[in-house]
């Protein structure tokens, strides 16, 4: 839209305004991250423990666990994503409203973890959706989840509102849809989403 572009340029000129707006925006979404009520496996119990009295995720304003993806900001992939579950996870991620964040909690969510040799276990959810923060551990302690949460907040703080470095959801060109894999006769098809998953070569 031409008008929008002009508006953006106009706003770019008024740098201060954008900066304040950016700060306000980042502060707002950083301080009010509502997780999706979404537990997969072992780590879910630690995720629940994090919201409970001892650790109290609520102190950060993040105890509003929304059951519907429409109202949630953050998806905590807490546990093993199996190949049977992966399409559902990807679909749920797709159905969340932007901006949305993903925390891969625990070894299984990052890489398949101890179960990665299994035939039905997805070797990391980042094969299909972009993950913001990874927490290793099996399961990570509740404090580790809190730390990851703060890491995510820092990450949000550093995101500019305009310009090249702006996050995915502010970029009109960046894809908003992440295709849901099909369940084939032997495996998921495709086995990974090439636009989010590029593997570094391991030198051996």
């Amino acid at each position: 839209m031409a008008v929008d572009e002009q508006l953006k340029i106009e706003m770019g000129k008024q740098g201060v305004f954008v900066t304040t707006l950016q700060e306000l925006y980042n502060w707002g979404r950083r301080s009010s991250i509502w997780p999706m009520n979404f537990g997969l496996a072992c780590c879910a119990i630690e995720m629940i423990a994090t919201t409970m009295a001892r650790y109290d995720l609520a102190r950060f304003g993040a105890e509003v666990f929304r059951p519907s993806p429409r109202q949630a900001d953050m998806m905590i992939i807490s546990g093993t994503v199996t190949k049977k579950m992966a399409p559902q996870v990807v679909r749920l991620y797709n159905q969340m409203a932007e901006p949305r964040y993903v925390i891969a909690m625990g070894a299984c969510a990052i890489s398949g973890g101890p179960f990665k040799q299994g035939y039905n276990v997805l070797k990391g959810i980042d094969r299909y959706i972009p993950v913001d923060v990874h927490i290793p551990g099996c399961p990570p302690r509740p404090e580790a989840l809190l730390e990851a949460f703060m890491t995510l907040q820092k990450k949000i703080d550093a995101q500019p509102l305009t310009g090249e470095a702006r996050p995915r959801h502010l970029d009109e060109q960046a894809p908003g849809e992440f295709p849901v894999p099909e369940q084939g006769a032997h495996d998921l098809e495709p086995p990974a989403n090439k636009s989010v998953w590029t593997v570094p070569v391991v030198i051996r």
Partner: protein
Amino acid sequence: MLGEGILKGLAETAKNFAGSYVSKERLTTVQYPEERAEHIEASRVFPFLVYDGPDAFAGMRCVSCQICEKECPPKCIYIEKSKDKKPDYVGKPQNYPVRFDIDISVCMSCQICVEVCPFDAIKMDSVFEMATDNRFGGLLLDREKLLKSNEYYHSIHPTEATEVDGRLAEEKAKVEAKAKAAAEAAAAKAAAEAAAPKTAAPAAAPAAKPDAPKPTGGAE
């Protein structure tokens, strides 16, 4: 009467609400980044490699026997054995790992590597703050990141570390005594050296891991 149970329940929550302002028992939150729960000695998260003395490389206890690599249930350890040798803590030349990688994005913190290590070289760390947005770089720990000093080990697991130290010192003393004896009796020298690695086996089983009959090094 109808509603009695509800009133009882309301009284219970009210008690907790009021109690949260006066009693620690009713306000159990530990405010994490500023406050921390008391460190539990046995607590384990990811493995690390212990080295003695000031130099990480020279004091490295690992002799790359690869037992942990083999026994690790999720296969998250990768070891590359050196071609050359360096002296270990008793002074005997041993191989060392050129490469020692642990993929903590896979590690299940089961402690089996620690249990099977005959050299007390790998131990469990208690650092859990490893969250990262770098999937490939941040979660693969290499030898440099894994090596931590014996002092650090003492600081996190004092009881266990003292036992390990005692055991190692005993072993070292034995080797030294044998070496001394060997120097005195040149004839016994060769025999003493051959027996040196075997001495690891009969070390008294400590309380920390009394079960494992110590394997006599290498894969059996």
